[in-house]
């Protein structure tokens, strides 16, 4: 791979999720040069792994398609996948960024014909389904992947699968000898759009995630509900593959909790309200959803959606932080123990599946970035940092607000490079 030409007139966007793509495209469509860095093999980030958006229940890939088309038609953006920032030095207007590029083991010749995947045998847990199923070691992340190119999993390198894949490719696209590469970029402004991490549900011990197979996270539930997901859109219990019909949604799984995440993750209430509608979609009248909550945070006009779900007879609301979950060893059902605090009613409710609305943790750090980066008490990027946060890297935001925030970040970056170019006056 050749290092793309970059100057103090270039904007670097770190993170290829919807915030990063937005920041990159908005800047590029103002005529600016942008490098878009993504650590995974494809753009799209977490939203590409969501089934539907609240409150419209439309499909995230629909917006992804538009953004990809904007990207394909715009030569101002150069995309680097499998790339991570290892070090940043310098200051606004003039940064030097060290980037590590991991090998894809598949070059530009790839036509995404899929012969390599047919050829290989080994499988690995599929990260694009949060490990709910497996994928071949030669794989296309998903049908909306960009670049539309296969990837050879590092675990295959040195095995005979690598050879099989190479042999199966008519276009000489597979090269198991690719190595890690280091490159150095000079850029004028940096937008940090590294997104968020789902909070590790296993740490919320009373809920038994990891101990009880039928306790899953809201993100796993998204994949399960998606017809393109591991269960073909059926809501199936991990323990026995039975269809789940009586589902509990536990809010603040990690959020608003000084033992876990101090902040409110903002999106979880709406996400669970949305997911109750997946239950309706999948199970019709038989589906029952129960939402255990402290406060329902359906901010601004999302209230409409909350009121709509409130009226849905298949959805029950219990104002309670569930105290603990026990498992009925025979049936694998789960018994939720707690107190409905609206007038003190104790309950021990039986559910066949429990969905933990896991909170948003800040993106994992470990990057050597300039000191003037400010983080709040939860570790999110704060306003006033020399590097501009965009989207969830700067705090728990829904998609709409992430995009709004990323658009603002694009302007802040443009200001820096325009100043560096002394263009301000000349526009």
């Amino acid at each position, binding site marked *: 791979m050749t290092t793309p030409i970059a100057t103090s007139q270039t904007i670097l966007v770190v993170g290829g999720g919807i915030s990063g793509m937005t920041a990159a495209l908005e800047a590029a469509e103002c005529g600016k040069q942008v490098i878009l860095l993504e650590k995974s093999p494809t753009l799209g980030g977490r939203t590409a792994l969501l089934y539907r958006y609240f409150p419209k229940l439309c499909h995230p890939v629909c917006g992804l398609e538009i953004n990809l088309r904007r990207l394909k038609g715009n030569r101002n953006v150069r995309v680097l996948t499998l790339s991570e920032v290892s070090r940043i030095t310098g200051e606004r207007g003039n940064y030097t960024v060290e980037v590590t590029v991991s090998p894809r083991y598949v070059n530009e010749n790839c036509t995404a014909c899929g012969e390599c995947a047919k050829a290989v045998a080994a499988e690995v847990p599929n990260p694009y389904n949060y490990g709910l199923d497996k994928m071949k070691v030669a794989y296309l992340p998903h049908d909306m992947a960009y670049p539309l190119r296969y990837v050879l999993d590092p675990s295959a390198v040195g095995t005979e699968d690598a050879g099989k894949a190479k042999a199966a490719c008519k276009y000489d696209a597979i090269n198991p000898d690719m190595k890690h590469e280091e490159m150095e970029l000079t850029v004028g402004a940096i937008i940090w759009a590294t997104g968020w991490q789902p909070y590790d549900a296993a740490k919320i011990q*009373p809920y038994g995630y990891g101990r009880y197979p039928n306790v899953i996270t809201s993100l796993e539930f998204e994949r399960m509900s998606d017809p393109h997901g591991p269960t073909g859109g059926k809501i199936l219990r991990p323990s026995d593959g039975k269809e789940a019909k009586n589902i509990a949604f536990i809010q*603040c799984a990690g959020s608003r909790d000084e*033992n876990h995440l101090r902040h409110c993750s903002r999106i979880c209430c709406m996400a669970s309200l949305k997911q109750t509608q997946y239950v309706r979609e999948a199970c019709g009248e038989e589906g029952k959803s129960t939402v255990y909550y*402290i406060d329902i945070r359906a901010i601004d006009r999302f209230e409409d959606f909350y009121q709509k779900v409130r009226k849905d007879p298949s959805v029950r609301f219990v104002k309670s*932080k569930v*105290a*603990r979950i026990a498992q009925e060893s025979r049936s694998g059902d789960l018994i939720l123990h707690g*107190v409905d605090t609206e007038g003190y009613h104790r309950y021990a409710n039986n559910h066949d599946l429990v969905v933990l609305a896991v909170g948003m943790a800040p993106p994992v750090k470990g990057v050597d970035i300039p000191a003037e980066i400010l983080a709040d008490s939860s570790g999110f990027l704060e306003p006033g940092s020399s590097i501009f946060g965009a989207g969830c890297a700067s705090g728990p935001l829904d998609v709409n607000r992430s995009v709004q925030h990323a658009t603002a970040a694009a302007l802040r970056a443009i200001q820096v490079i325009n100043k560096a170019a002394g263009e301000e006056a000349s526009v």
Partner: protein
Amino acid sequence: MNELNIKYHNNFLMEVEENVEEGKWVKMCMQCGVCSGSCPFGPHWAHPPQELFMMVRAGKRADVLNSDSMWMCTSCYNCVVRCPRKLPITQIMHGLAAYANHLGMAPKTQPTRDFSLLFWKNCTRTGRVNELRLTLGLYFNDGFMAGIRKGWAMRGIGLGLMKAGRLNAFELFKGHVCKDRKGVHAMLKKAAEIEQRRKHPAS
């Protein structure tokens, strides 16, 4: 203003903050109810912890202090480790109970109250617990006959422990003691004084 008008004002909350161990935490509760759901004695609480906290903030002084709910705390600490606001709930429950008792507002025939007082008396008398006296004391606490009845009901246990050498008749006459009993008593007297001083600097 009378108690009716000071509803949801801070009067009682402040009283609790001043007089109850860890009372300053009461205001931090966000009413999630995880404590109430975590308590092994839950069903026996007329008012679970989170509700008691709300009652304190609502200024329901008598209802709180007369309640026997906080006497139901078994010190299992489930609520403490699960509370998303890290409230020391066990201590607050003990504190509320102790304060109610101190004001003479605790329910008169509350067995745990009796046991708690008895235990303290027992262990401070000699510096160490005298288990036999403690047990008998508990039985005979509300009257001789009642004691005989309870004692009789529990005789199996008593005899069993005796046989197992784990309840010792000889404790009645000379049980375990601290040598420096005087020191212990003086120390406790002083501690009590200091606590008075801290609560009411004026006096």
